[in-house]
């Protein structure tokens, strides 16, 4: 166990240079982009004089090196800066927005796994049958349609025409108040507070956007599961298990699936990061106050602190997710080590 912790610690240390690089690159990139936040925030009717005033107030008239050291100094103390656009500290914004996106992405991913994995297994056990073809069609449709199109389409059918889904106004309908903040995940927080109505309201708002994201994530997961299962089912140990007379279920789940799950897990990590990015369009359609729209708006406004904060938090998240996947892999497969 100690060596495992030691290995995890070493992996974390290996990630530090990349995070530092991310900080430097995001700092330079945001300032190299065209667009002057001073002009943007001086507002309408501003002339050279008032723009210069705003520039000084924002601290943008100092040299880049000076600004960088001020920024890093603040970062170390936990101050990620102030978002000019929203007027809130960046940490506050991220702490509010990140759970919103994470909740959506995780539920979407969960839905995708719940549909794609059984579909992939079915397709693998009946290759060439109609189930395999249905799997292929569903997967192609899900991946070729852009997320905003799927989102708008689902809104059109289920909200506009049928009226089954609640209005796409965001995380909670107007009649509900958000549950007291514990994790930021409304589903968890409302259950912790014992508030079943808010729980149901939050779930109702989640269904359509999570389905949109899930459809998009179906493809890689289903195809990966199918491919890995096919490979596993054709292997020697499965042949031996069958020859030894083990039941179909045991062969399928304990032997074939456990071995096939390794590439699936790796794909999951990639799909999760990918989904966090694809979030933006879904957030726009469903008015979800997530991290994607926050980042886009900050970029448009040349809101340096917010963009850098976003990039940094995404980098840290990516490191954490990959590390988690690696740890799970070592637990399921004794061949895989955390080492080099």
């Amino acid at each position, binding site marked *: 166990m100690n060596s495992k912790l030691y290995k995890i610690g070493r992996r974390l240390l290996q990630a530090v240079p990349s995070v530092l690089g991310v900080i430097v690159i995001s700092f330079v990139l945001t300032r190299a982009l065209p667009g002057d936040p001073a002009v943007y925030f001086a507002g309408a009717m501003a002339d050279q004089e008032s723009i210069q005033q705003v520039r000084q107030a924002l601290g943008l008239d100092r040299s880049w090196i000076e600004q960088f050291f001020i920024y890093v100094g603040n970062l170390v103390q936990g101050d990620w800066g102030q978002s000019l656009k929203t007027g809130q500290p960046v940490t506050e914004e991220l702490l509010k927005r990140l759970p919103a996106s994470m909740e959506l992405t995780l539920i979407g991913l969960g839905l995708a796994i719940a549909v794609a994995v059984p579909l992939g297994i079915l397709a693998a056990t009946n290759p060439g049958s109609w189930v395999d073809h249905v799997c292929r069609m569903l997967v192609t449709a899900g991946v070729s349609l852009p997320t905003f199109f799927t989102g708008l389409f689902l809104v059109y059918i289920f909200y506009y025409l049928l009226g089954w889904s609640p209005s796409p106004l965001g995380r909670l309908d107007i009649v509900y108040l958000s549950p007291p903040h514990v994790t930021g995940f409304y589903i968890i927080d409302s259950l912790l507070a014992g508030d079943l109505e808010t729980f149901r309201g939050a779930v109702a708002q989640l269904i359509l956007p999570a389905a949109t994201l899930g459809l998009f994530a179906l493809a890689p997961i289903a195809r990966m599961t199918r491919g890995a299962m096919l490979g596993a089912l054709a292997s020697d140990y499965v042949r031996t298990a069958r020859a030894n007379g083990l039941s179909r279920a045991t062969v399928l789940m304990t032997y074939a699936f456990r071995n096939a799950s390794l590439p699936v897990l790796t794909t999951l990590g990639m799909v999760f990061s990918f989904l966090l990015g694809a979030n933006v369009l879904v957030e726009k359609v469903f008015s979800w106050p997530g991290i994607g729209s*926050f980042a886009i708006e900050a970029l448009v406004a040349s809101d340096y602190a917010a963009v850098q904060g976003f990039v940094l938090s995404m980098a840290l998240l990516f490191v954490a997710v990959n590390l988690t996947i690696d740890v799970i892999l070592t637990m399921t497969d004794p061949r895989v080590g955390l080492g080099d």
Partner: protein
Amino acid sequence: MKRRDFLKSVGVVSSASILPFLKYLPAEAAGRKDTLVVVAGHGINSLDLHRKGTNRPSYQVTVNIYDRLVRFGVKTLEDGSLSYDSTKIEPEVAESWTISDDRKTLTFKISPKAKFWDGSQVTAHDVKWSFDRAVSLGGFPFVQMKAGSMTKPEQFVAVDDMTFQVKLAKPSKLTLPDLAVPIPFIINSKVAKAHATEKDPWATEYLHKNPAGSGAFKVVRWDPGQQFVYERNEAWALGPKPGAKRVIVREVPSASTRRALTERGDADLYMDIPAKDSQEIVAKTGGKVKVSGAPIDNCLHVLALNLKHKPFDNVKVRQAIAYAVPYSDIIKAAAYGRGKPMFGGKNMKPTDIEWPQPFPYDTDLDKAKALLKEAGMSSGFETTLSYNLGLASWQEPTALLIQESLGKIGIKAKLDKIPGASWRTAALVEKRLPMHLENFGGWLNYPDYYFFWAYKFGHLFNSSNYKNPEVEKLVDETLHMEVTDAAYTANVKKMIGIAFEDVPRIPIYQPYLDAAMQSSVDGYASWFHRQLDVRGITKDSV
């Protein structure tokens, strides 16, 4: 567990979970009657207009929760819709005012009915503190106050508790209307000063999230990025009682979603609906949703030519282009008919000082070619046509149509798309775009005000680098002149005549500002600040 038992338990649990909802149903139906749900595309980022970096949508909040000394009246247009009236100035916090004989001193009597939310009386000292703040924090508030000749705290005097004076160096007709714009709002200075610090003497950190005013509404809830909620101030006595008790303004980024919500009746009001949607939505819902809109005062969508780039310094070239713009097509394709045509005038010299008024140009490619020939450019030339991606909804089709039409007279225009964040720097600050689309609209409804900002050399919205000594002289003379002055009409006519002749800016149309709302919503008025004033809105029971 057996299947039957499982199903039974599920049945019990689901029917039990409906019970909490029952208490919502009848209450909700009644509650919705005095709650207005508004959907908007952009969210607010501050409750304090004077703060640096406050975005435009935030002006709406200031309009509704803070009072000013005076306000504009409301008039009914020909088609029955309501609009603000720039010629009528009504009392708000000031119950009456007098202007001295030399017109350099305006004295306001504060109404004893004006009370802050904490019950205390609004005094002249609060007004002075608020006005001092408006001119001391710089940025846009300073520039707007300056337009009304108010720049220094010394100009504001609290004569006694209920009398406030504004002293001017020179008389100006713009001062009084400038007191009705969103900027000079009145803050409860006692509350603000209690939260001021040495580093922050104007309490910007506190007022950013905690307004302290006297207005008809209060902000009871603000979830940045999601929504904010107004609640009616029952003690407000400075005007007719607002019809809505609660107004929820929800941020919905996707235009299609906003439209779906309005069509389904889940949103009561949709501010700033694009022209295309406004035309379709009325037909689609069979009149359940109505659209109210008016042309934006003192605002023009123009094609601007930069005189620093040859050959636009030649007036014949500019006039040729004015004859080549496909005006009617643009109004159909870019404005969907929601634009007042600003072309096809009959005389080369204006007959009145109505502004904006149609310029004496119309699409005539032969005339355009002849003028180019006179200018020695019969073989045409190449140039760049820039537009703002942030306003692509009308600027993109307009630019494409203009590019096509110019091609027919030999001018090859390359399209240059500039992202919204970079637009102001390129077009207005550096003034480096050869040919571009522009949309300035002045808050104070006078033609000389428009000319001040768009035709005076070096001024922000003069992206054409246009310099004409006669225009400079005329604007300086006329800007602060009273409308009733003998020379006013003659000067403005001269200015418009020069603009007709020189066309550094070619007006295409005057845009409309439309809002879509349920048929039960009444009292919506179009304002110059293009934001929602909820104080006049009522919602009948359907």
